[in-house]
């Protein structure tokens, strides 16, 4: 499914995507293929859902404010509640986890006031209390994710 070129693009360009007029051409030269081949391969990765995008990772809380939120929702209502929450444009990740607190999502807002308004609205919409866990410190230096793709 994934060609050697796909794998190189996935692994080697997570951190320092070329900042030049023809970045895909630069990558093509580094890998010894044509620019067209690189563009095609990126389109395939995108179309098949292997990449979310090529873009910037903006650190949390430098622009706007983000918080992790946890909820305990009865299993029978989880999908419906999750759908309601996912519909908020301020929500960007929303996962079920194996715990009494089984729904975990991230809210991004302009400021604290906006954040609290979104949480309050979600609580009213769903009828369940939300536990708000803002970020106090970020220890992670994001160097991208080292993939082992031999079997992918």
């Amino acid at each position, binding site marked *: 499914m994934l060609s050697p070129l796909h794998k190189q693009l996935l692994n080697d360009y997570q951190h320092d995507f070329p900042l030049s007029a023809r970045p895909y051409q630069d990558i093509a030269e580094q890998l010894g293929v044509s620019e067209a081949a690189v563009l095609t391969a990126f389109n395939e990765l995108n179309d098949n859902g292997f990449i*979310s995008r090529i873009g910037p990772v903006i650190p949390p809380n430098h622009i706007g404010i983000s918080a992790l939120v946890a909820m305990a929702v009865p299993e029978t209502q989880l999908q419906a509640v999750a759908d309601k929450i996912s519909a908020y444009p301020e929500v960007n990740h929303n*996962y079920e986890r194996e715990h009494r607190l089984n729904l975990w999502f991230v809210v991004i807002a302009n400021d604290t006031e906006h954040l609290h308004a979104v949480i309050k609205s979600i609580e009213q919409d769903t009828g369940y209390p939300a536990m708000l866990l803002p970020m106090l410190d*970020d*220890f992670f230096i994001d160097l991208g994710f080292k993939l082992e793709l031999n079997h992918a």
Partner: protein
Amino acid sequence: MLDAQDRQLLEHIQLGLPICPQPYAEIGRLCDMAETEVIERLGRLKQQGLIKRLGVIVKHRQLGYRANAMTVWNVPDHLVKQLGGHISRFAFVTLCYQRPRQPEWPYNLYCMIHGKDRATVLQQLEQLVDACGLSSFDKEILFSTRCFKQRGAIYTAKVLTHE
């Protein structure tokens, strides 16, 4: 630190760089900025740490990394920074945060591991606990089961123009 043009640029680029020969020129057209200025500004934002990294953002699940564990520890506050720094140096760790304790939720240190299967993730976690001296602290491991929504942080124009 961010001026109005930086904000406008970030708003247009956050959903992704177009896959075309001159993507920065394309972004420039959207925010009425020269290609060279787009490139110059992005370089500066990276240098200033306002862009953590610029590049391919992979979808773990689709690439076979289906086991995702969020581990939370209750560690003494004065050790959080040191332990967080230690944890974040492991290649298999994808996020590491401090968050405030809550009533009935005593945990203050969070770590995310994405792996191909649970057994591997649990092994990595054991390695982490040993190496960082975390064994005496209370912890919980929360594996994700369903993903309802995953996308990059979307900062709206409203967020980006907010002072």
